[in-house]
């Protein structure tokens, strides 16, 4: 039942001399939502970005240990980073549609990975439907994506990730820039996506974490303090630190 999709083993990460992540060991179960919580600056985004190798861009980033997607070691020299990012999609904190039309935001991703011209329109429609955006945009697919509202833009970014049929979707505080109604829509979307995808989401919102997560990981100062089911982390935390944090005593 609880097949492991993504995992980190003895994972350390440094920016220059500064160690940001300290000996992280974590397993993400397939088709579940795992939330990463913890105070600002504890390394949640850094950990998330390690999973699709976004740190490859920073020259002073250095990693130790390994991260596996199924059995594939993602930091192996032979692993193609573009293939990896097709299998592990990412949604960013601030909606970042490309300065293209709604349609092109999705077709871009498909063209990059050489999907055939004939199947692209169908795939785009499907992804937009799955992201609860189709009804709102189906008549104006040529419109610049930036003309959409913030919540729609974020759902477009999710659609753009979904259209590639990844296996894992990483989300870094996807609702932090959105109003409550848009947030509800995204949460509903996440719940419906988890049957097909393994989802790892960073959130600052404790209520949100409780609503959507199967498992919760609490991080503090670059360490993974507690990792358990959502219920256990919020109701019966093992560590004093976790208890204080989830009860809002610091953060």
């Amino acid at each position, binding site marked *: 039942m609880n097949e492991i999709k993504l995992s980190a083993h003895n994972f350390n990460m440094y920016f220059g001399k500064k160690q940001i992540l300290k000996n992280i060991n974590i397993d993400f179960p397939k088709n579940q939502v795992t939330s990463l919580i913890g105070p600002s600056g504890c390394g949640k985004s850094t950990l998330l970005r390690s999973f*699709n190798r*976004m740190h490859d*861009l920073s020259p002073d980033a250095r990693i130790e240990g390994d991260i596996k997607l199924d059995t594939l070691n993602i930091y192996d020299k032979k692993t193609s980073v*573009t*293939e*990896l*990012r*097709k299998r592990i*999609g*990412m949604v*960013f904190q*601030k909606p*970042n*549609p*490309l*300065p*293209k*039309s709604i349609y092109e935001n999705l077709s*871009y*991703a498909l063209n*990059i*990975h050489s999907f055939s011209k004939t199947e692209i329109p169908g795939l785009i429609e499907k992804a937009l439907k799955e992201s609860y955006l189709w009804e709102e945009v189906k008549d104006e697919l040529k419109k*610049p*994506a*930036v003309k959409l509202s913030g919540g729609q833009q974020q759902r477009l*970014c999710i659609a*753009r*990730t979904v259209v*590639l049929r990844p296996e894992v979707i990483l989300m870094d505080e996807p609702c932090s820039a959105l109003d409550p109604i848009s947030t509800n829509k995204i949460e509903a979307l996440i719940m419906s996506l988890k049957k097909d995808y393994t989802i790892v989401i960073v959130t600052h919102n404790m209520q949100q974490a409780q609503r959507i997560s199967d498992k919760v990981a609490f991080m503090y100062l670059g360490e993974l303090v507690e990792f358990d089911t959502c219920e256990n982390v919020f109701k019966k935390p093992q560590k004093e630190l976790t208890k204080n944090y989830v009860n809002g005593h610091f953060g």
Partner: protein
Amino acid sequence: MNIKKRESTDWLLKQVFKAAGLVTIGLLAGIFLMLLYNSIAFFADVKPVDFFTGSQWDPESSTSKYGIAPLLVSTGLVTLGAMVIAIPLGIFTAAFLSELAHPKLKTILKPVIEMLAAIPSVAIGFLGIVLVGPGIAKIFGIQNGLNALNGSVLLAVMALPTVITISEDAINAVPHSHREASLALGANKWETLFKVTLPASLPGLIAAVMLGLGRALGETMTVLMATGNAAVLPKGFLDAVRTITATIAIEMGEVPYQTTHYFALFAIAVVLFLITLAINLLGEYFANRLRKFHA
């Protein structure tokens, strides 16, 4: 009391900025009207049809010919050649500087490029006479390398710093989040550069091209020295040419005041002015059409 004072400062500053804007517009309008006024005198003597369709520019001969075509084609050829060289080279250099170059290399390259802009045009003209021109003559096996191609190469060199600097600013101004979005979808560095970053910076790149084009169209000394100065209709890049600017510079000093020939030089200046204006408006139009895809 305080509020009132702030409001009056506000009003005063507004007027100052408005005045500054109006002075610029006034200057532009003034120059244009001055050129226009003098060229009207020209068109009283020479029929516009002869001016635009005549294939000879020979004001000194007994039958004084005032066809703008040789000058216009010369200007067009030299500028076109310069842009064909400077646009790709400039944009790729800018992309290299902003996306690929090691920071150390960048700190060396940038001042060098800016220094290129500081070389006086006379010096570039020399370069054309002693180096580039003879080089072209050798490569193409012709007698004289002082031709349109020579002018194009030199003007490209002069337009490059402008094109590179403005393009680099435009590329740098593309939010990092666009690049991240593209890379996170599995695009590689090149796909991101060509399909996201450069298209996103296109309005700025157009501005860069326009400024570079303006530089090339208006340049006088270099083309005067290095393109052979033959006011005959050129057949290609290897012919000697004489641009509008060079013609004005050469003939203005010798022409008797308020003669047809004198007014003719104003008329060709108006044409150059209008071409520059049209190109800029066109560039502005396309840049605006693209901007609606940006936040």
